[in-house]
């Protein structure tokens, strides 16, 4: 599947297109479909998101997983500071990145 990601202009946070808006949780990402470029153009024009791009991902039992390691690290946070990641309570959180 193809999903859309970007960064929150104000905070720099990694965000994912949910079909209705933006979420900080990759599991909320939805298939962008054939309108991805149009969505990006529309959202960029709102000046609330930056560095938008379409990336490859798959849906697993655990949720949406970006295809490339760089995007998986974006989704989780730094693997060396899991306390600062989206799953700070899970000591094995880094496993799904690698």
């Amino acid at each position, binding site marked *: 599947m193809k999903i859309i990601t970007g960064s929150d202009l*104000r905070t720099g946070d990694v965000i994912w297109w949910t079909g209705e808006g933006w979420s900080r949780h990759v599991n909320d990402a939805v298939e962008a479909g054939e309108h991805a470029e149009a969505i990006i153009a529309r959202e960029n024009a709102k*000046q609330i998101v930056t*560095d938008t791009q379409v990336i490859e991902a798959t849906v697993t039992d655990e949720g949406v997983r970006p295809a*490339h*390691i760089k995007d998986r690290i*974006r989704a989780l946070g730094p693997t060396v*500071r899991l306390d600062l990641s989206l799953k700070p309570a899970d000591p094995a959180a880094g496993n799904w990145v690698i």
Partner: protein
Amino acid sequence: MYQYDSYDQSMVDARVAEFRDQVERRLAGDITEDQFKPLRLKNGLYLQLHAYMLRVAVPYGTLNSRQMRMLGDIADKYDRGYGHFTTRQNIQYNWIKLQDAPDILADLASVEMHAIQTSGNCIRNTTSDQFAGAAADELVDPRPYAELLRQWSTFHPEFDYLPRKFKIAIIGSETDRAAMKLHDIGIQLVKNDAGEIGCKFYVGGGMGRTPMIAPVIGDFVPPLQMISYLEACLRVYNRYGRRDNKYKARIKILVHEIGADEYRRQVEEEFAHILTLGLEPPAEELERIKGFFEQPGFEAGASDDLDLSDPDFALWVDQNVHAHKQPGYAIVNISLKPVGGIPGDATADQIRLMADLALEYSFDELRVTHAQNIVLPHVRKADLYTIWQKLDAADLSAANLDLIGDIIACPGLDYCSLANARSIPVAQKISERFADLGRQRELGELKLKISGCINACGHHHAGHIGILGVDRKGVENYQLLLGGCEGADTSLGTITGPGFNEDGIVDAVEKATNVYLAQRDEGERFVDTYRRIGMAPFKEAIYAKETANG
């Protein structure tokens, strides 16, 4: 230390106000990202994997306690409680919000700091010897010259849009502690037989995807003509450096392609022209600057005696304390490389503690090193034990300077949008594999440097053992290099062969060290043994298992 005059301060304050306006317009949607990006980069604000990253300049790596404390406070107030000291003697914050950036810059300006020219194709923060003004082997204190460079290069209109970024290092000792020959320009302050000071110019070095060692271009430039000679070097580069291909745009490519002799001829021609214009800074200005770098008020007759009865303290002194030019004093190296830690990271509390120690015990001075450590340059030997105890209580007493545990590592794919592979986990695993300090000391000086991509921020080309992370079809892979070195005997590492996964590279490093231990001659460092016996024995050991398994 240098102190801003009203001109310096007003310039930095004006820049903060300008950037505040730019951020407000961006947040209001009045300017686009394409318009805004070059403006934020001019102020050191990048957009990285997880957030904005702010790179703060530490001019020639020198700080006072007030500045250091502010760096700690910024980490707490605007970031997530820590900062990352870099291989260019700067500090980076990884979790900055755009809306906070102007306030951070204002806080920095209040202690005479900024993030100007820490990005972009301009002259970056000049780096220098972290032992400047303190080292026993120093010929000339490079800091006044570095400050002159700072003033000359800041907002220099002619060199604000160079073909590519430009990095200068300056040293004043025989020992090169700043990797000078691996910079776009390295300047070594030297003395001739008559005792006169001169500048030896090395031009066209660098790491990145095309590593090169800088050749000597100017043998002995009078110090008051240093700026004019730099102007000439930059002007020739600005005129002929390639702007059509960013991978061939650094000055090293120009010097290499036209040859050092032709580049020197053009520089000399330009230099002769510039000298006719009378553009050199007046001698009085250099003297004024030198006044800020007078020797601190050392205590006469301070004792050289040390009580080394505490074995852990004795180890730390032996490894991390360096000779000072002043009897009774020493240079303290604070390693930011605890076992299994993240190289270069320090918490806000640790940063503030180091500031306090500098204020109380080191004439209010600290240095950031290109090896991602911190230095207290002027410490009474009588205070060493107290300092060590305070460092030890804050997990800052790793006694591993220049050992295999003192790893340089870039942020890598955990933070950096340019990276292809993670650097930090590899550094942590190697650090843990060699956690035993006795084992580290048995290996002796061994500089291990890791980069997460070809841009080489982790200086892997210059590591006795270097590691380069690459992306192999979406999977992290690590190449091993041997034989790199910085300093007087600068050399570039050679790739051993096929790469490894994360665990494999740790094993490969260990095998390389085993070869060294088995083959070294008396007094040889790892890199010396490598140079004597060559790659073959290392390669044989590193790939032996793979070969046997066919």
